[in-house]
């Protein structure tokens, strides 16, 4: 039979994936700064990783996102780059506290810490962990959120060299936004940056946080694997904007984990604009009743860009409110993936949750895979979810054309309108304006 003559399948990508992961773990572990040993944490991550393989599309969680191109890269931890320039887009327009990491290393010359509210602590996580009195705010929470058993989160825990620590004392209103910039600059060999940030907002405090990932990735392949953990204590409130605008050859993998104590409010906006491949894990864990959670996501993709958002809202207490809106604009041959889970356990009675994913396809070759998921055990809840995939409507374009707009102007305005419903959730006017201009370029 012909079938018996064909050569056996190459042995085996599975092996290759295993070797790649173990090798990467080894390299990362050996590059850990001596003063940041964190032996227990890192050993635990290493032990768990030994049982794992590098993600493959055969795993349900990675079904639509293929990381195989990474297997060809001989990744090395990216070195610090001294004093690069800040990119134009990093400007929030108002003098604000700004913490800057370059290739995962804290850069004190570019950071600006003046204007922190009294009692607040901010700076290099590595430095803070090395000062026992300050470390007490961070160490007990570092890598303690659920969801650590995920390959990239574990790789970050195993090997991160630095990041940002931010602690807001109880009952503080932080007037001006605090920004964390994660810049990636080209390295001689394919570099891997693994920033790790930990933000703690104590009881009754309020904070506006902006995280921006970006840089010039055009000339060098690079993987950013960032993890940010946010702890909201009772009644704390945070407005969080996470903007991913990496260079076009960068692989970006990111985790945002939020712990929400009783009566806390989290309002997050995540923008995915850059990188050739983007994967964002957005996880919210409710640790007390009556929390409010807003998740707003927007991906604008073109060329052969790929962007994947996996979100999880895990509710285990009563009276939680969740509103999630995720929108994608997909042009050319780009591919958007959305997997949004909201888990309402037996204890989470009186939950009110809604989730809607809307996708706008601008080309015949664009692709969208979407899976909104509600998992409800509690019996007295109000939950709704849905997804739409559509194209621009010819009648809408004609209406605008009949008012003097060219077909491309009309398309741009409609795309802009679609995006604005998410962009307007960003509370900083100057930032919104920058994003608006970038969006206009994107939809050209």
């Amino acid at each position, binding site marked *: 039979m012909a079938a018996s003559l064909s050569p056996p399948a190459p042995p085996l990508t599975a092996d290759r994936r295993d070797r790649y992961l173990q090798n990467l773990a080894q390299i990362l572990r050996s590059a850990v700064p001596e003063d940041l040993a964190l032996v227990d944490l890192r050993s635990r991550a290493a032990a768990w990783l030994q049982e794992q393989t590098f993600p493959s599309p055969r795993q349900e969680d990675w079904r639509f996102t293929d990381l195989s191109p990474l297997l060809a890269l001989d990744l090395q931890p990216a070195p610090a780059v001294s004093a690069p320039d800040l990119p134009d887009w990093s400007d929030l327009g108002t003098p604000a506290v700004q913490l800057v990491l370059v290739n995962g290393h804290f850069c004190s010359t570019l950071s600006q810490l003046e204007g922190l509210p009294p009692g607040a602590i901010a700076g290099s996580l590595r430095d803070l962990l090395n000062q026992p009195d300050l470390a007490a705010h961070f160490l007990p929470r570092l890598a303690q959120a659920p969801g650590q058993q995920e390959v990239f989160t574990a790789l970050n825990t195993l090997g991160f060299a630095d990041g940002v620590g931010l602690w807001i004392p109880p009952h503080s209103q932080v007037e001006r936004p605090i920004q964390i910039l994660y810049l990636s600059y080209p390295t001689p060999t394919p570099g891997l940056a693994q920033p790790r940030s930990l933000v703690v907002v104590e009881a009754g405090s309020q904070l506006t946080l902006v995280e921006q990932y970006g840089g010039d990735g055009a000339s060098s392949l690079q993987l950013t694997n960032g993890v940010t953990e946010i702890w909201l204590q009772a009644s704390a409130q945070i407005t969080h904007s996470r903007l991913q605008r990496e260079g076009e050859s960068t692989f970006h993998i990111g985790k945002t984990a939020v712990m929400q104590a009783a009566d806390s409010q989290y309002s997050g906006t995540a923008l995915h604009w850059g990188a050739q491949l983007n994967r964002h894990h957005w996880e919210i864990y409710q640790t007390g009743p009556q929390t409010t959670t807003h998740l707003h996501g927007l991906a604008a993709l073109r060329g052969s860009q790929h962007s994947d958002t996996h979100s999880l809202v895990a509710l285990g207490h009563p009276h939680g409110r969740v509103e999630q809106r995720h929108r994608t604009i997909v042009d050319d041959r780009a591919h958007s993936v959305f997997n949004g889970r909201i888990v309402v356990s037996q204890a989470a009675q009186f939950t009110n949750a809604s989730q809607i994913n809307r996708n706008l396809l601008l080309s015949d070759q664009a692709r969208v895979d979407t899976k909104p998921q509600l998992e409800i055990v509690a019996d007295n809840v109000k939950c709704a979810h849905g997804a739409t995939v559509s194209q621009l409507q010819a009648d809408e374009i004609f209406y605008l054309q009949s008012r003097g707009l060219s077909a491309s102007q009309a398309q741009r305005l409609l795309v*802009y309108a679609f995006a604005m419903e998410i962009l307007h959730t960003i509370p900083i006017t100057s930032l919104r304006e920058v994003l608006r201009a970038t969006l206009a370029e994107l939809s050209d």
Partner: protein
Amino acid sequence: MITPNSDLILSVNNLHASVDGVEILKGLNLEVRAGEIHAIMGLNGSGKSTFSKVLAGHPDYQVTDGEVRFKGEDILEMAPHDRATAGIFLAFQYPLEIPGVSNRDFLRVAYNAHRKARSQEELDVFDFDDLVEEKLGVVKMEATFLDRSVNEGFSGGEKKRNEILQMALLEPTLAILDETDSGLDIDALKTVAQGVNQLTGPDNAVILITHYQRLLNYIVPDYVHVMANGQIITTGDQTLAQELEARGYEGLLQQHQLEVTA
């Protein structure tokens, strides 16, 4: 207002047009001169709305024969936005909603597209605000109207007034109002009619497409045309509309057929 020697604005000659291969317009002829108000009446399916969309350049309609000249120029090859900036304005029967774009921004973009086409400098936000707030009076709208998303959640009357506001801003040479009166209560109808009357002068022209005579009590047409089966079958003055109202389309169509066969 009929002035025999005024400029010819629109000249439609033996116009045939189809949608999805079905012929809707079957040899339509019409001339419109500056200063004139024309009403086109007819039953549903007679081709009135198709005619308005063909004039504005809707891509779903194919012109298979005939010609349309606007101020002497053949427009059938022109893109819809070029027709718009040349001075043709279509007020939609069902204006579209555009969530996420404020009415103010939409109006400014449209207005500036016209300025740009005339090689005039675009107006900045502040100058435009002054202009648009002055125009609001034409349709008796509040300024808060400008900060809502285009037509989103507008009542039927608000949508139609918004169309007339756009007309007031863009100052077209030829305005085509496609069933602007449909779905309006009497107060909204009066407001819309007053707006149109205020915007009509010796240099421009209006085509009113309507099912009912009601609107023509408030906007007095110089000509009334009746369409049936893709053609204009008869033309008269306002008394024709009154006659239609009294006798219905059926009576008129029968009479017309008699004349044709006689």
